[in-house]
């Protein structure tokens, strides 16, 4: 089964917040939507879930056109940033509510909830209220609820944004195991590019309600189609040299090399990041970021050089790639 969006759009007050958006996600594929805040990535997710109405285009789950169906009839499993657990119900009751509303019999409910609680390793927390759980545990309850939905499509809206960095790394493999192994199309929204690169089969970079580029993570990184994409992916951020002939040249920090001659630079400041160090340089081409070995003792003045093949060129007006 494939999730398919065809030129989907939504307008608020005569402004398109999602415009002419098309993509398809095959089963066992995870598409990650990234972009600056307010770019329309969460709105896209809400359109797929049926929480908001499309004013344009069609949404299909396989052969089924769901564009005008209410969320209850779409069978999507959705995980929210704030987990959206009901504070006055226990973990068990939170999981049970949806099943109950959908008319699942009581023995069946109990069997499925036990099974899912084992899966997310929360069997001993069944009778606790969400307020008694840690952030990671709440997140797993939210995942369990989405899994209980027997969903056609999984939608995850910044599921890890409320967790600290360490917990995120722990939960990522778990999330992959629980959701991605279901073999259903998954759409994942995040603003964290590390998370995007880690989870995605494909990444769609969104800006102003439109897809700027959609591709595999590696291809996006190596072949950005615009300055926006090049700057959005990759940390430390890509270096832009002084514009020449209405063209912007950009080079990744890891592609800069030291040499005996080349562009003369002055060291402004340095950040030691453990396994690498980040150097901030000043040159006639403007400020540069550069990655170096952690043990490297950087002199006050130095020369850097780079291979011309590693340089991306963008049109200064449109920001589109020219070579």
């Amino acid at each position, binding site marked *: 089964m494939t999730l398919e969006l065809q030129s989907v759009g939504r307008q608020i007050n005569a402004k398109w917040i999602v415009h002419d958006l098309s993509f398809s996600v095959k089963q066992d594929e995870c598409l990650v939507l990234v972009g600056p805040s307010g770019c329309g990535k969460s709105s896209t997710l*809400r359109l797929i*879930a*049926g*929480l908001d109405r499309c004013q344009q285009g069609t949404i299909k789950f396989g052969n089924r056109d769901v564009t005008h169906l*209410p*969320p*209850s*009839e779409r069978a*999507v*499993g*959705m995980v*929210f*940033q*704030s987990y*959206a657990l*009901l*504070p*006055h119900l226990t973990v068990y009751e939170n999981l049970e*509510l*949806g099943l109950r*509303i*959908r008319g699942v019999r009581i023995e069946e409910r109990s069997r499925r909830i036990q099974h899912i609680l084992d899966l997310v390793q929360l069997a001993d927390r069944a009778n606790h209220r969400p307020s008694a759980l840690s952030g990671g545990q709440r997140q797993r309850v939210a995942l369990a*609820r989405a899994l209980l*939905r027997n969903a056609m499509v999984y939608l995850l809206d910044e599921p890890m944004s409320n967790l600290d960095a360490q917990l995120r790394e722990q939960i990522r493999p778990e999330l992959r195991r629980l959701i991605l192994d279901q073999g259903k199309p998954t759409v994942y929204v995040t603003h964290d590019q590390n998370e995007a690169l880690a989870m995605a089969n494909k990444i769609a970079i969104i800006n102003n309600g439109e897809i700027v580029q959609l591709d595999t993570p590696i291809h996006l990184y190596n072949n950005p189609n615009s300055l926006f994409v090049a700057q959005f992916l990759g940390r430390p951020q890509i270096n832009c040299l002084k514009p020449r002939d209405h063209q912007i040249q950009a080079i990744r920090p890891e592609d800069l090399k030291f040499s005996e001659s080349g562009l003369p630079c002055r060291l402004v400041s340095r950040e030691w990041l453990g396994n690498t160090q980040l150097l901030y340089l000043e040159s006639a081409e403007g400020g540069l970021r550069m990655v170096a070995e952690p043990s490297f003792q950087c002199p006050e003045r130095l020369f850097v050089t780079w291979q011309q093949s590693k340089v991306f060129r963008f049109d200064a007006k449109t920001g589109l790639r020219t070579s």
Partner: protein
Amino acid sequence: MKLKSASIILLLAWSLAPLLWQLYTSFSTDQALVTPFETMANRWTLEHYRSVISANPPFFLYLINSLFVGILATLLTLIIALPAAYSLSKLSTTKSNLIRIILVGCALFPYVLLFLALLEIARALSLGNNLFALALPYTALSQPLAILLLGSAFTSIPPELDDAARVEGLTLINRFRWIYIPLLAPAIASTAILVFLFSWNEYPIALTWISETSKLTLPVAMARIAGSSIHSVPYGAYAAATVLGAIPLILLVIVFQKPIVSGLTSGAVKG
């Protein structure tokens, strides 16, 4: 510290003195009331309470009438105001602000001025002398306050809870049952008590809509004692009735002090 204790005592004296005087009056013989500074043998009596309880119709009937109208009006108000408040919280800012301004305007309206037209409505639709019907104007007049209070409570519910419930397949009625009503219980309690107090205490409409003695609400029944004759009000019996009538309200205020305070104050914050 001394100053604070003194102020508290002063506050309590100010608030409770008139009631305590009623209490004193209700247990005093008529003779004692007329000459309070003379010592006499039969100073205290339960006669006033006896006469109130054995009056025809019995005093408790008025309490029951008021209770009935109060509860009915409160329930009706909530049934109508809850969906309206939900709707208000889902509207765009401009629209909901416009509606809020209309509601504040209605809440500020000195509703006493409406009694004549309401009386005409009651006559045209034969709603007079009917306690069920009396709850209707109370319900209507309570809407502004109830919608404003509940509306601000609805906006405090995180929208993602709503979204998650819709994805799970909960209909609007399901969401009221499982999410809004449990989560808004404190605000609903505050609103309910304020509406109940208003209905229990309301005078001009009850005065004009109800004339049958057996259907009077407490405030009108009490005022009738005053109106019966300007010069010789049976103050002893009246004080006994006041004490009996005040007890349920005093209990209500003690038990529900928190929701009353939070209801009034959150109304203030909302402006």
